[in-house]
């Protein structure tokens, strides 16, 4: 079989695994959250049911071309992030399309989905969508600062932006993980992750009360299913990104699942403990402590280099 087709199929498989794992992880987290709050919570299979329900709806209401294309952008953004990141350490077939770009590409590709989402939601003409987007963008910009600092600290430390090289450097025991070799950068990065995941306390973007469901206010049926698909993928992929950066990556699917669950759990757990921030507060917060830690991390890394 041609290499590229082979590659394509393996990637498709990976995507499928990640998607389902994302659904599972999401419902698990909801259950854990419910238990903590003394409720029973949704069944584990709820996401699949939701998906089937949404796809089988028969009313497809559209506000226009962009409204239609917005979710596509969004999902391409999520899938793209998956594609440009290796899944398993040292595995050729599970390295996806990470040969075409590295960490920098990934960081910037995040915006691709956001842009599409933003465009699509905006076209609906619902003011809630715009409000949500404007908040999201502001928070995203602030989160980028500690994130960038963390990435640069790592790049200085390992002298590379390449995932595979960063991962290689972290192999051979957990003491080689960036978490321990470069704790400051890890803290900055993890704090940034809280914002990137848009969980409480940084979830004003999709604030359930003020605005029904955030930017995708107007989305429903198959459009919403695409968005849900994306959010399942993106949660896993975001978690995998931080896993790769700070937790030594995964060399088997099992480790992949364990670690991504763990990383994701951290963010959810913190969200359950803290109340929600106003957007200006969260912007200030990210530009304060995580940024300071990030700067120290970069300076330390530069010094040790």
């Amino acid at each position: 079989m041609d290499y590229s087709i082979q590659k394509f199929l393996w990637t498709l498989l990976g995507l499928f695994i990640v998607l389902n794992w994302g659904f599972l992880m999401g419902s698990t987290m909801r259950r854990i959250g419910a238990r903590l709050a003394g409720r029973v919570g949704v069944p584990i299979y709820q996401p699949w049911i939701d998906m089937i329900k949404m796809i089988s709806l028969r009313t497809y209401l559209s506000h226009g071309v962009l409204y239609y294309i917005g979710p596509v952008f969004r999902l391409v953004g999520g899938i793209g992030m998956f594609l440009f990141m290796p899944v398993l350490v040292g595995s050729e077939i599970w390295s996806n399309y990470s040969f075409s770009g590295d960490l920098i590409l990934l960081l910037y590709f995040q915006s691709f989905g956001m842009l599409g989402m933003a465009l699509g939601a905006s076209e609906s003409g619902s003011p809630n969508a715009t409000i949500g987007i404007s908040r999201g963008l502001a928070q995203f910009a602030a989160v980028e600062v500690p994130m960038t600092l963390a990435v640069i600290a790592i790049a200085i430390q390992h002298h590379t932006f390449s995932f595979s090289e960063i991962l290689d450097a972290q192999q051979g025991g957990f003491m080689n993980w960036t978490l321990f070799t470069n704790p400051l950068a890890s803290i900055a990065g993890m704090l940034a992750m809280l914002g990137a995941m848009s969980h409480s306390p940084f979830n004003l973007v999709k604030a359930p009360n003020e605005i029904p469901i955030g930017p995708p206010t107007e989305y429903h049926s198959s459009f919403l299913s695409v968005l849900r698909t994306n959010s399942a993928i993106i949660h896993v992929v975001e978690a995998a990104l931080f896993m790769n950066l700070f937790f030594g990556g995964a060399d088997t699917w099992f480790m992949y699942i364990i670690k991504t669950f763990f990383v994701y759990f951290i963010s959810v757990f913190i969200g359950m403990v803290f109340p929600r921030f106003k957007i200006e507060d969260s912007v200030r917060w990210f530009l304060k402590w995580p940024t300071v830690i990030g700067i120290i991390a970069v300076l330390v890394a530069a010094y040790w280099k």
Partner: protein
Amino acid sequence: MVGPIYIIAIALGLAFFLGFFGKSLKDVSAFLMLAGLAFMTFISGQWLLAFFNGSVTTQEIFTAGFRPPYSINLRMGYEEAVMTTMINVIGFLGGVYMFKRLKEVGNSAMSVFIVLIMSLNVIVMTRDLFNLFVFVEIGSIATAGMIILEKNSKSLQAGLKYLMATGVISGLLLIGIIFAYYFAGSLNIDGIITAHVGVTKAGAVAVFLIIAVLVLELKPFPANGWGLDVYQSAKPGFGAIVSAATATAGLYVLYKVLPMGGETWYPYIVLIGLITFVGSNLVGTRQKDANRLLGYSSIGQIGLVMTVIGLQPILGSKFSFIAFALLLNHYLAKAGLFWLSGIIKKEKISDWYVLRKNKALLILFVIFIFALIGFPPFPSFFGKYELIMSLVSTENIWIAVLILLGSFAEGIYMFKWLGDVLKDEDQTEESLNISWNKFIPIVIVGVSLLAAGFYSTPYVEGAHYFYFIPLGFIVFMGLIDFLPAYVKNTLSIAGMTYYSYIIYPLVEGDLMRTIFFVIFMIGGILTLIVGYNKKGKREGFYPVALMMYAGLATILTSDSMFGFFFGWELMTAGSYFLIIRGKRSKPHAYSYMLFSVAGAYLILLGFAFAYTSAGTQDLIALKDIAVYTTLAYTLLAVGFMTKTASLGLHIWLPGAHGEAESDVSPMVSAILLKAGVFGLMLLFLYMGQQTGETLLFVLGWVGAFTALVGNLAAVFQEDAKRLLAYSSIGQLGYILFAIAMMTQLGWLAGFTYVINHFLFKAILFIVVGGIVVRTGTHNLYQMGGLLKKMPFSFVAVLIGIITLAGIPPLSGFAGKWLFYNAVVLKGWYIQGVIVFFAGSIAFMYAFKLIHSIFLGQLKDNHRNIKELSPAILIPAYILIGGIIYFSAYPQNVLEPIGNMLSAYFPATVDWSGDGLATTVLSYWNGNAVLIIIVTTFILVLAYLKLITGKTTKLEQFNIAYSAERPFRPETTHVSYNMFAGLNKAIGFLIAPGITRFWKNISDMVLDLAGFIRRLYSGNGQVYAVHIIIYIVIFYFISLG
């Protein structure tokens, strides 16, 4: 040859003869006066020609049949021929101009006028001190008489003040003269020079008195209140004579008499000239009365020429050219301005907008203003350039700095005035009443200015006639300004294409220049295409647009610093006019000009340092500047940064770009700003990493903060074009940061940004500009929902903002990728993070732009709006083609640039054949990314299509919002204060501190001017006291 003595004979004979004529023969006598003036002009002119051809040598004219020192002698040399010709020409033209008024007052007025001109001739020619005194007195009395041609109390007062001042002055002159005779035994200037009377204390005092008085005749600041009153109250027609002819004579006398005191006096003249030039121009900044303002300017310019006279020993062989260029420039321009004032008949400069009623006069006005400030192609430009070069190369840096300061102060009020003229609301219906006798002299001096500039060329190292080719075309375009816009547009495009074809060989071998060539010329042609969209004649647009492009082309092709500077100033002038065409552009064009002029002066100083150390005008001189190295490079960098609008120097840009016409914004934003980048790149390449270490480090930080502040300000903009304008500031900040790194990656990133910014900013400004015209509003929150009306525009803007935000797969990401690598390799981490933060913010305003215009609810008043015209979309889509190509095949562009750069920096990035770029840190494959994303996109789209049935299109207001359907688009279009949260969090960063800073500075300058000008109390006696104090202080400085 008619002897010069006949100038006297004719003038006096005629003056006396006119007494025979009664009132009935006024016409005859007026024509006789003109004939007399013409004949005087003829006499001096033929001598000038003869000297020019070299057919005569300096002639001594003896009177009474005896030789000096026993009798009075006159001299007619080359210099005298030039000066008398200047005086007589202005006398003749002035006579033509004041023809009617002189006739009204009568024969005596004509006699006085012709005697005045004659006396100035003699002042120039005479070699006898006492004779000089007599004719100076004649000049004074005639001037006092001519002042009251304007019959009012003010002019009478001015006349009396003038008489008092000159009375005191001439008394002191007499004391000086008689003692010079006492010590030297001669009244002949040459005799006194050879007698060296200055060696004794008393002799020195005598010489001092003579020189001081001659200086005072030139109305030095601040002992010149009486002179200013003359300028203000006299007929402008006569103001021209005082400013042009009297000053010429006075300056020549000073030049002639100075050797009497020997070398030691020159520095004091320099000092006096400088104080006058700077002080007078400074005080002028507060002036609102046109004629008095011209007075301040005149005195300032005379101070400048005085400075040059004082610099004679320093300037050496260049003295003649510099002095003459500056004098001639002042002479022509000031005469023209005064004469214009006589036509306008408005006291307040803010009332001069009536000038717009007559295009020819308006153009002449512009010519005079630009000539005064020293823009090319006028003689003052050449003169000032040479002056600064010579001064700096002889270590007289402070003099150069002060001269530039004075010029700048002059610019402050001149451009204020120009702005008022060009833009002020027209409040009257009255039309200009122009008689031919007033019009023609102005045209003559205006054309002479242009000609004089042309003929200055051979005197300046590095200047070529070549630079005048585009100017010729511009003049041609100006002449055919009456044609409809599309004809002129076609001609302009053809002209630019042809000129590009001509100059392409000049840039061909140099990749950097080629890139900028594409941006300047091809970009220029594309932005001109947009002009087909405009209806009507578009009067005045094409000459100035072409002027800007001519300047850019000259910058690109010149191999000398002079040529570069020539192009730079030409471009500044052209862009100024382009910018000021916008509806509310007046204050912005004004601040643009001030920053540009200041920046240009810094560049000039920097060039002068380079010239000093290399001794050549070749651009290569910028390499290894040996004197004041850091200072020189800093000056140059800051100078270029005024054009790139770096933080601190950026306050002109938002207004200038935002308020400009729809197709001008892309010209000045996408193209013009790159001139500054070109300058910086050139500079950095010549400077090198080693020399500029600290400077580059600082510039890196400046670039980073510029990016942050520019982008942040853009986020909070509600005005579509201002948003783009602030975005330009931010983008230029990236570029500055990138090239300040001085690594191959940094420069590659810089070039990528240059190319990208050119492409996307041109697209955005073209399209958004078109939309602004269509919707009739700049405000984003008044637009919305236009996607359905303007899909093509939307796609263009979308591609523009994706590139802007650096989102893969479009070429914007190439810049980001290179940036990351460069930052980490360079080690500028923190600055880098600021830049990346700025990048995230860029994404926010990009979204705001596209959202507010195209998405959300369509406004009721835009329901019938149409898609933009093809004239706008075609250039935009051509540029989009550029973006797509650059995105798909970045290596095709970046690899050659990288190779070129490896000549200067160690190569750090490799390209493999299939588009993979690698550095030691990172890798990126543009082609692959594009393919992967496009494929995924198609697949996902297909999937969505698959799971989605037939969609129903919803009505506009069919949304869920507050449990109701909204019915007003305004209530549901969220655009105003869109990023309120961010604003609360970090909005303080863009508090207008810098604007306030510059505002405070300008207030300080104006306050200072206001304080100084209290000296001019209006009391003639106080002015006399000033004169005495001036003499005393001058004495203590020079001899005390």
